[in-house]
């Protein structure tokens, strides 16, 4: 488990949503996919989701699955409505110019490896 603040301290990510106490947000595991149905089955609660999708459906899926933070890669830009909805739902949207592969690698190095929710 890592605090989102630790991730932000170690990986250069732009915070798109309102600033909150990132040290209070716990990230237990990660998931990456650009297909929402796959996220639906594969992603666990309290995971960080890495995706190229930047539209409002990301917020809907994250909210439903209790995903606290989403990293949007390759500079894909969510619109204002998406960011507003994310703020409303309490979901942190982060942006990076690099690709999903690199981000996953960095997160893995930081120690976010475990995908078993029971551990």
């Amino acid at each position, binding site marked *: 488990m890592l605090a989102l603040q630790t991730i932000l301290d170690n990986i250069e990510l732009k915070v798109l949503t309102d600033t909150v106490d990132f040290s209070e947000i716990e990230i237990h595991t990660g998931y990456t996919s650009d297909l929402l149905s796959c996220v639906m*089955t594969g992603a666990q609660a309290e995971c960080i989701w890495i995706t190229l*999708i930047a539209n409002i459906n990301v917020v809907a899926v994250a909210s439903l699955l209790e995903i606290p933070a989403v990293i949007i890669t390759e500079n894909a830009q969510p619109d204002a409505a998406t960011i507003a909805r994310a703020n409303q739902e309490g979901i942190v949207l982060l942006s990076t110019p690099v690709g999903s592969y690199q981000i996953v690698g960095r997160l893995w190095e930081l120690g976010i490896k475990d995908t078993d929710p029971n551990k």
Partner: protein
Amino acid sequence: MSDQATLSDNDAGMITRVEELGYELKISQVMTTNVVTFSPDMTMLEALNLIQHHRISGAPVTMNGEVVGIVSTEDLIRALRDGRIDRKVSDYMSKNLITAKATDKVVEALRIFAKKNVGRLPILDENNKLVGLLTKGDITNGLLDALQRDYQAEEVKRYRASHLFEDIESDRTSLILRYRIIKDDFLHGGAASNHIKRALLRLGADRQVARRCGIAVYEAEMNLIIHTNNGGFLRVEIEPHKITMEAYDDGPGIDDVEKALTPGFSTASEEVRNKGFGAGMGLVNIRACVDEMTIKTSKESGTNLYMTIYLDKPKN
């Protein structure tokens, strides 16, 4: 007296929650931040004037942001009794400092108040600079606020909701939620499933059950948005022992149901795929989440999708 003797279940639950909050809340969340401070070179009379003006009962004494002492009403009374109200604050302040850190949990402060005979705690940051003042009253107010804010309202609603079925007597009680889903309304996609999931949690449903329902209904909702002629309806019936979910539309129907149930098969357009849909996993996901799934479809009358989750036999 008799009030204390009778403790309802609700009160009992509340006490535990207060204790929990003591461990959750940081001192920084409940302390007073606009702290009136004295300087050591001030006279006790000036301190008294400040105390009266701000209606406080004491204040920390600081030098360059660091706490060097604390003055309470008792110290003022001592100075008055001695007839030396013109003496400096540094002569009468208490130098035996008991402080706490802003990042500490409230429970730490409660322990200090229980052990030491102090009325207020100067609160310091990581550089030992004064950032706030904490009294027992601040803690009480902070806990009450926190309870009110993020817990009480929700919990009372949930308490009422989760006892809904017990309170109503009938031969068969059910709660029906209906949502109209509009074709191509990607902006509100997922709103109905989110509402349904929240309703289930309010009703006291197991988190895992609420999640399974949420996923199944989300997929059905997106199918109505993406694949129908005119959108459709979601209908969720909640009963004490099962949840029945139904998605129906008026066309165009599914050409080949078996194909539609094949993982990866999708008829979604390129545009829809670019939004992250069209993985060809919708119905597959639904089938994995629910205990029973039935599809009735025809070109003439559209598609009816029935999904059932039984609450007395947990899946997975």
